[in-house]
Every structure is written in C-alpha cells, then in structure tokens.
C-alpha cells in the first residue's frame, strides 16, 4: 500500500524526477508494495511526507519495473531508500557498511524526519555525504554480499 505516495514505473520517470526536483531532497524507495517491511516503511514515508514537503519529495519505485536502476544502485535487499539532491546522489553514513542507500525500514517517524533534515542541511552546505542522526541501534542490520564479476 503506497498510501498516496507517487509511483515511478519506468527509468524515464525516475530520470525525470531526479533531474526535475530542484532544491529538495529526492527520496526513492525501492521495493515491492506487498512486502511487509516495505509496507511499514511506506507508512512512515506517507505520514511524514506532508510535513517534510518543503524539504523532500518522496517517490515509490518497484524494483521489478526499473531493473537497470536496481542493478545500478546495487539493490540487494528491499526496501532500499536512495537520496538525491539537485541530481546528485547523497551518501549517508549510518554506521552500516553501505553508505549509498538506507536498507530496511525506520523504527520511528522521527528517525526519518531527522535523517531528512540532516541530508537537507548537508546538501545546502555543499556536503555530498553526511552523518546519520539515527541511533545505530535502530539501524537494521544486514550482510553486504559482494558480487564479484
């Protein structure tokens, strides 16, 4: 259930969004709508999207619909959330091995709000990588698998 969040169904749409949104964080949730963790995350995203509307634009992407991005962003677990600002990818150090995306769901709405704020402020200052404000205990753990070529 996406709860009124806009959906992107093809690469072109995703490209459009990344390029077009100006001076706001672009949040791309990669996952599947039926997945239980995705549902949890989607609820948090949907409930906070209005309050964060000045700082962020949130979109839902089905991993099966845009496989090239699924590969390019190296999405191994779902849900994975990727952040952009003015066409630039924003990295966040969560204390986990992968800084390029947030894997899993947030524990509370406030965690997500704090994260967005930190990303926004960092972007305004010209930082392309920021420190996550979320307590590391609340960060979901996973094993990063290395896919050798």
């Amino acid at each position, binding site marked *: 259930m996406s709860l009124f969040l806009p959906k992107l169904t093809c*690469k*072109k749409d995703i*490209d459009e969004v*990344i*390029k*077009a*949104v*100006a*001076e706001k964080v672009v949040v791309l949730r990669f996952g*599947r709508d039926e*997945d239980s*963790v995705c549902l949890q995350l989607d609820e948090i995203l949907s409930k906070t999207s209005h309050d964060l509307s000045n700082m962020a634009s949130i979109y839902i992407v089905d*991993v099966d619909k845009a496989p*090239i991005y*699924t*590969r*390019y*962003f*190296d*999405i*191994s*677990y*779902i849900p994975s959330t*990727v952040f*952009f*600002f*003015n*066409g*630039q*990818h*924003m*990295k966040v150090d969560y204390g986990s091995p*992968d*800084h*390029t995306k947030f894997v*899993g*769901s947030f524990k509370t709405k406030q965690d997500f709000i704090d994260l967005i704020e930190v990303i926004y402020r*960092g*972007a*305004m*200052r*010209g*930082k*392309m990588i920021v420190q996550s404000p979320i307590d590391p205990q609340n960060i*979901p*753990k*996973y094993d*990063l698998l*290395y*896919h050798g*070529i």
Partner: protein
Amino acid sequence: MRIHSSSLFLSQVKEARRTLKKPQVEKFDCTQHKQTFWCYCCGLDIESNVTDGNMAVLYGGLIEHMATPEHRKNTHKFWWENKADPKLRDKVIIAEEETERFKAEVAKALESYVEKEDEYIKQQADLIRAQEKHRQEVLQSLLERDAEPESFNGPNGTDVSAESSVSSQFMSQGSGQQAGSSCVDSMVEAPWAAAGQGLTFIGYQDSSNGGNVHTGAVPPWLQDDPLEGTSGAATHSEIGPSLQDFLKQKEQEKLKKLPPNRVGANFDHSSHTDANWLPSFGRVWNSGRRWQSRHQFRQEEGKKKRQKRKKDHGTEGSKKTKATEQLTDFDNA
C-alpha cells in the same frame, strides 16, 4: 509744595489752552502721541491726546479732563490744602463753554485734515500712474525698435529720481544687470504686454472634426494607434511580463537566497538527457570518483550483454543469466 509758574505742569496746560482756539490734528504717530499727563490735583494719569488710531487731536485728552467737574473740585481742594497761588488756579481749570467751542473747532479741524489727506493720496496716485505710463512707453519703444541697451538705460536714468518704491525697484533691477540680460528681462515682460506683437503666428488650428483640450476630447496618447492593428490584438492590451515569466522571476529570486555552495547548485534541471543517462551514483564497491562508477557500471553492463549474447549464440540450451539475485527474506532484528 509750590507750583512754580514755569513748571512742566503749567507749561503743558498753557500749550493746551493755545490749542483751544486752534485745535491741532495730526496723523497718529504711536511713538509720540501716546504720552500721558499727570494731573496733580486729581492724582491721575491722563492721556494727553485723543486718537482713533489714524489721527490724533493734540491735547484733546488734557482739555477734556480739565473740563470735568471732578477736576474742578479736586483743584480747589488742592489749592486750599497747599495754599497755592490762587491766580494760577484758574489757569488749570477749563470752563465748559470753552470746551464746547473747542469741540466745534476740533470737528472742523478734523474735516480739513481728512480733506488734506485725501488730496495727498490723490496726488500720489497720479504720480504713480504717470510713472507706470512712462514705463510702458519705454518698453514699447524698445520692442518696436529692437532697441540698444543705451536707449533702455537712457529713460531709466530720469526715472530714478521718482520716489515710488515699486517702480524704482524694477528699474534698478534692469539697470543693474549686464546689457544682454537686461534684454532678457524685458523679454519676460513682453508677451503679456505685446499680445501678438513679436510672436510668430502659425495659423488658426482647426479641430472641429476631432476635439481639442477645451472640448474634453480623448488625448492622442490614449487613442488607439492606426499602426498597432498590424502587430496583433493581444500585444497592446497587456503590458509587462506574462504570468509565467513573472512566476519564473519569483522562483529565481528564491533561488538567489539559497546558499551558493549547496550540492548541485549549478545543476541544470531542464537539460534533456537521452535514455541511457544515469545519475551520478557513488557505488558501493568502488573507491574511485563518482563519475567513474557510472563508467564502470556501463562497462559491466556491456560485458554482461556480450556474455549473454555469446551464450545465446553458442548453445541452444537455456542457461541462467547472471542476474543479481534478490533476497527478500529479511529479518528485522
């Protein structure tokens, strides 16, 4: 106490008596005519002259006071108490008949004074008129002859002797300036004096088919231009930027307020990219710069495709493609 025959008091009274027969009326001068006179007998300060603001009857007040019965009583008392010279006493009192006579004389004197004043005023008026006329004649002669400055200053010299303050000021202005500018001065005065002389006539303006400013017609700058019809109807009804331009301008202003060193500040949001475009993405396993990750990815994709093609061509059996496996079972710790 003795009242000396030559005291101030008595001398004033003497003066007053003299004016009984011939009252003096003079133009009121506030510096001189407000004097007061101290009557010893009554112990009062009395205004010496009578005035209505414009004219003054000298010693009028004094005489009036001396005629009053109270003054007579007081004088007798004074004389008895101080044992003064009775001869002098009568001088200080003025009989009523005398005051009547005085008043009649005063009326006559006032009349004659007023007449004299009128005459004087008329004389002054005549003088002023004559000067004005003379000035006009001089101006006329100037315009007609395109006169030299000397002829202007010539009649000027004779007029300076006149005592009218207004006209002499004007003349002195003219003579005090340089030759060139004195002509300019006269030119300023000329239009209203000349009324058609010295102006270029450009013909009678016929505005009977249109209107003019007096009839309240629409002014030319508010009328629709015959030239405008060719450029299109919409252009002349709106002025200023269109709504879109205006909104864009607003957005630009907002942008200017943002910090200039923010991420992607110079990112061109409207640039058209092809289908192969990928955003710059710092990949997980590379240590180089971000654009390299894009490059690397493309290389990998290329390799995968080549390998896939090879396999398809090489064998007929189905082989699994090397797609990255997606693991979805994931426990929330």
